[in-house]
């Protein structure tokens, strides 16, 4: 297998859907603040994780456990427990970001394979080399800000595997260091595992459409027939220079299906699909489509029309190849 397809699962049933649809690996997290998708009703108990790993292994797939938030001072216990539970469940790897968590894993769980989360925002040979040399990290998930050419250059200078996002929510911020959500709500993906925590999100139907509020701030409005996006500040609509615009980022989903061949040529080991917060319908459809993309490239077959097939699932009704094709840098 040349390219590994790493797929999201927010629930045990989504894990089974991903495996059944052709995922080579599934990533998921425990139901607490130790992972960056800490939403109500989502994620796995330790017992569910063990069953999930067994199901995946029985079907030839791997399970990677995301423990990728940053513990606050004096609150290390949940991360310690999560690492022990991942090893107990016989996970194939853990995805970590915090140096203390990496150190604890390397010291106390030497049998666990360590992947560096995108939350660590490591995108230089020096940073990646540090994590590889210090903690024996085997794979790094690349931030979504690099072009294909930059990834190819990076891969020539490092000795660890790289994993690149190819579909789903697009975060252009320095991940693990973004404070936009904290600014408005006091909670962030970095420490609490939630960007725009749902208890702060409100959708209000108004005469001309839907207003989106975060912690009392109106951050966007969608007209009645206008496609909507996630309620995050980075995708909010702001007035700047006299113009009302999505200043930081448009509501749009990444779709790099057309670049999978080039990413493989650039030395990328694994392709990641974002969306642990999404439903089984999304997981099954996206995994099936990308598995077809990967299989077609490996077999030299006709390209799969992934943009067309996945058009109904994307945020804001739009798709982009993101920074992979960015010209202006």
């Amino acid at each position, binding site marked *: 297998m040349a390219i590994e397809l790493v797929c999201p699962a927010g629930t045990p049933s989504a894990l089974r859907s991903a495996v059944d649809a052709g995922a080579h690996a599934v990533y998921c997290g425990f139901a607490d603040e130790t992972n960056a998708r800490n939403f109500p009703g*989502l994620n796995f108990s330790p017992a569910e994780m063990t069953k999930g790993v067994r199901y995946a292994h029985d079907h030839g797939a791997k399970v990677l456990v995301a423990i990728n938030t940053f513990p606050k001072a004096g609150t290390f216990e949940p991360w310690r427990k999560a690492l022990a539970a991942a090893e107990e469940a016989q996970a194939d790897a853990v995805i970590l970001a915090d140096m203390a968590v990496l150190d604890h894993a390397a010291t106390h769980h030497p049998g666990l394979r360590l992947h560096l989360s995108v939350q660590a925002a490591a995108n230089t040979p020096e940073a990646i080399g540090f994590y590889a040399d210090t903690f024996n990290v085997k794979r790094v998930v690349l931030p979504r800000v690099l072009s294909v050419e930059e990834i190819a250059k990076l891969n020539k200078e490092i000795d660890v595997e790289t994993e690149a996002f190819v579909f789903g929510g697009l975060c252009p911020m320095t991940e693990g260091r973004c404070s936009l959500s904290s600014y408005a709500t006091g909670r962030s993906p970095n420490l609490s595992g939630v960007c725009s925590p749902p208890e702060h999100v409100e959708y209000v*139907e108004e005469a001309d459409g839907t207003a989106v509020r975060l912690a009392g701030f109106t951050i966007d409005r969608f007209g009645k027939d206008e496609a*909507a996006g996630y309620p995050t500040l980075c995708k909010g609509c702001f007035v700047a220079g006299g113009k009302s615009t999505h200043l930081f980022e448009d509501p749009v989903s990444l779709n790099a299906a057309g670049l999978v061949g080039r990413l493989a040529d650039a030395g990328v080991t694994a392709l990641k699909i974002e969306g642990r917060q999404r439903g089984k319908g999304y997981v099954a*459809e996206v995994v099936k489509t990308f598995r077809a993309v990967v299989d077609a490239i490996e077999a030299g077959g006709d390209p799969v029309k992934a943009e067309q097939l996945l058009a109904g699932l994307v945020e804001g009704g739009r798709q982009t190849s993101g920074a992979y094709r960015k010209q202006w840098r």
Partner: protein
Amino acid sequence: MLEHQSPELPRPARLLAAALPSWPLEMVLTRALRALADRRPELFERLGVHSRCVFVVRPTDLDFAFSVVPHRWQGRVSVVRPETRGDVHIEGPLLRLLGLLDGSLDGDALFFNRVISVSGRTDALLALRNAIEEAELAPSDLLGVSGRVGRFADAAILRAIQALQGMAEPAANATPGAL
């Protein structure tokens, strides 16, 4: 206009639904909810503190809505007027709402495409959505029947839903490949 529009129930089905008395529907759905709590209590753990919330689900092609309090064995489903308020409101065409129940449709995609609209407590809404995602509900679960009767009900109802989708007005998929 958005590319992906939502199908509405055909007029005869809407008229039939409007003629139904509410109490048998309430009784069947409440009993099914409590039976599910009995059979799969772990699903209701996903709701956490939100299990006492009032979820108002309004199929936009029907003249009534459902009020659901999924509080385990004390759970209750009531047929209410469409304008009834609760902690959480979910609105959309019945066939799309059913697609959310069985997990064949993705809630975020329906929201992005404005097929469904939501308001109220977003944390409770997400907890319910994720609990339903894990539930993998079949039509028989909504009727509270199992075994051979359940399998017969599933087959019959799924055929009926497919037929309704075929007659839906206007007929189009909200999410290609789903349902």
